[in-house]
């Protein structure tokens, strides 16, 4: 059959990923030009780390069609795990972060294994429970975690240098502040998160995942062991959250059980739904919007949760596909 039909490589190439990645790189590199002070950098770092969690969560929610209501627990496990490994076991920060991620992977596997071969939304229930347990443990085990008062975290050290947000460093002849270096780390982490997510989506594994959302029966008949694949993407998304959590701890120098709260898990889900399920770039925008809103509401902090709820409802009613996919579709229709 292959001799009979001439090759038409141009017709069957995979859609190119580099234009999107290039655009992301340009935006990440250009943003510091608009940052006037450390407060702007602080915001951008937090957005980048949260966006990376959302990119991972989107693999689970947007592509595999499963909902986790406990991703804040994995984020907190990463943050506390790496902080405690550094503090109590003298492990350097980067290996501590990887060890914590491995621990979170095992935790996610143990939670997901008995649940994910069941049909329906049992994963939401189990992760909801996990999130609640994580918050209780972090609050009550104060001997280990510092309880509600929080836990100081040792700063990240790179190539033998401690990286303090208050320091200034000489980088290839440029003098940069610690916060600027941290922006570089967070932006780089987000970029790699997106790159890996896009690789995954466009692989045979990614097709199997998307098929779970499209038609689970079709996936099964094609030979996809659906439970196994859901479990795998659940673990991957938990590792994303863990790594981002570790970085957040090293950056902030102080963590509290708040990062494991149910509110935080809901915030992460809201970001994915707002930005656009199954839209990797969309959830970055979702993270930016949701983290910027409280900055304009400083006087009405108690309204924050109400507003998140309202956003979630409005998106579900008016654009269930999410912001970016809805707008992309509208532009495509208007284009000739």
């Amino acid at each position, binding site marked *: *059959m*292959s001799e009979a*039909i001439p*090759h*038409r*490589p141009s*017709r*069957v*190439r*995979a859609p190119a990923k580099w234009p999107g990645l290039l655009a992301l790189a340009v935006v990440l590199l250009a943003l510091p030009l608009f940052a006037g002070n450390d407060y702007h950098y602080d915001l951008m770092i937090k957005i980048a780390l949260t966006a990376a969690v959302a990119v991972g969560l989107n693999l689970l929610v947007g592509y595999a069609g499963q909902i986790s209501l406990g991703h804040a627990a994995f984020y907190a496990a990463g943050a506390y795990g790496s902080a405690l490994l550094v503090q109590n076991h003298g492990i350097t920060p980067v290996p501590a972060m990887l060890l914590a991620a491995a621990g979170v992977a095992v935790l996610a596997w143990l939670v997901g294994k008995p649940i994910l071969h069941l049909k329906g939304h049992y994963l939401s229930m189990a992760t909801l429970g996990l999130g609640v347990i994580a918050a209780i443990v972090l609050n009550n085990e104060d001997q280990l975690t510092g309880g509600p008062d929080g836990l100081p975290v040792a700063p990240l050290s790179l190539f033998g240098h401690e990286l303090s947000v208050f320091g200034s460093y000489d980088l290839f002849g440029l003098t940069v502040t610690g916060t600027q270096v941290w922006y570089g780390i967070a932006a780089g982490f987000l970029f790699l998160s997106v790159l*890996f997510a896009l*690789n*995954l989506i*466009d*692989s*045979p*594994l*990614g*097709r*199997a995942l*998307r*098929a779970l*959302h*499209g*038609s689970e*029966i*079709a*996936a*099964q*008949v*094609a*030979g*996809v*062991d*659906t439970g196994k694949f859901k479990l*795998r993407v659940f673990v*991957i998304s938990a590792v994303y959250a863990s790594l981002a959590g570790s970085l957040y701890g090293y950056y902030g120098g102080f963590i509290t059980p708040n990062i494991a709260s149910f509110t935080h898990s809901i915030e992460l889900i809201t970001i994915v739904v707002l930005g656009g399920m*199954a839209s990797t770039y969309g959830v970055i925008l979702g993270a930016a919007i949701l983290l910027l809103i409280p900055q304009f509401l400083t006087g009405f902090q108690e309204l924050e949760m109400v507003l998140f709820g309202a956003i979630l409802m409005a998106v579900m009613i008016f654009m269930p596909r999410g912001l970016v996919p809805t707008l992309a579709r509208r532009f495509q229709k208007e284009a000739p």
Partner: protein
Amino acid sequence: MTALLSVDQLGKEFGGVHAVEDLSFQVEKGRIHSIIGPNGAGKTTLFNLITGLYQPSSGGVHLNGRSLAGHQPHELAPLGMCRTFQNLQICMNMTALENVMLGRHRHLKQGTFTSLFKLPALRRADQQCREECAELMEFVGCGQYIQHHASAMPYGALKRLEIARALASSPDILLLDEPAAGLNRNETDALRDVIRRIADKGITVVLVEHDMKLVMSISDQVLVLCYGRKLAEGTPDQIRANPDVIDAYLGNRHSREEATA
């Protein structure tokens, strides 16, 4: 001749209703074997039993001499069996080509790290898979949709896309559940051609279909089901001449005479 698929005293009950009852037949290798019967005769139930979506209440199914009892649906593709669906099962969140590529799932590596880093070996294998699947789309006659999203394709083309996806798993035996339903005469003629070419490749075809013209023109063997039981089995000519089959489809002579009287 050897039996590739053998169904032995198969039965399925839904709360006292016998959807399939004491059914035995064999499908020989390389043949086109059609299953016909009035609505509710148990044809789709039979397919779901064979492909592991339902578990039988009694009896069993053997593929290549191997029992399929207790197999999960996803374990059948590696054994060389694939199917299509009466109500389409197309992933509308994917492109047409990706739907076909899903069919090659079991032939491709899916390691987590290989996928995250998109290693060159995976990239090459995936590109080769892409080209093979594009050829399969040409083969079933929906080549013009290679670059389309599945949600942008018309019904008739989606039916063929599903056949292409099933073929992508390189099956020994292909089960087609009413592939001509909803197709017009021209599309059905083209489908007949596709099914014949599939059989020419040495793939055994089991066909559930209502379109008698299609069934009678391409089948080697025809099995007639009625209320979950075997009513008749034979070549198309034998089936056409079988009085029981005529009764089942048109009512028995007695009631026909009453109706005309």
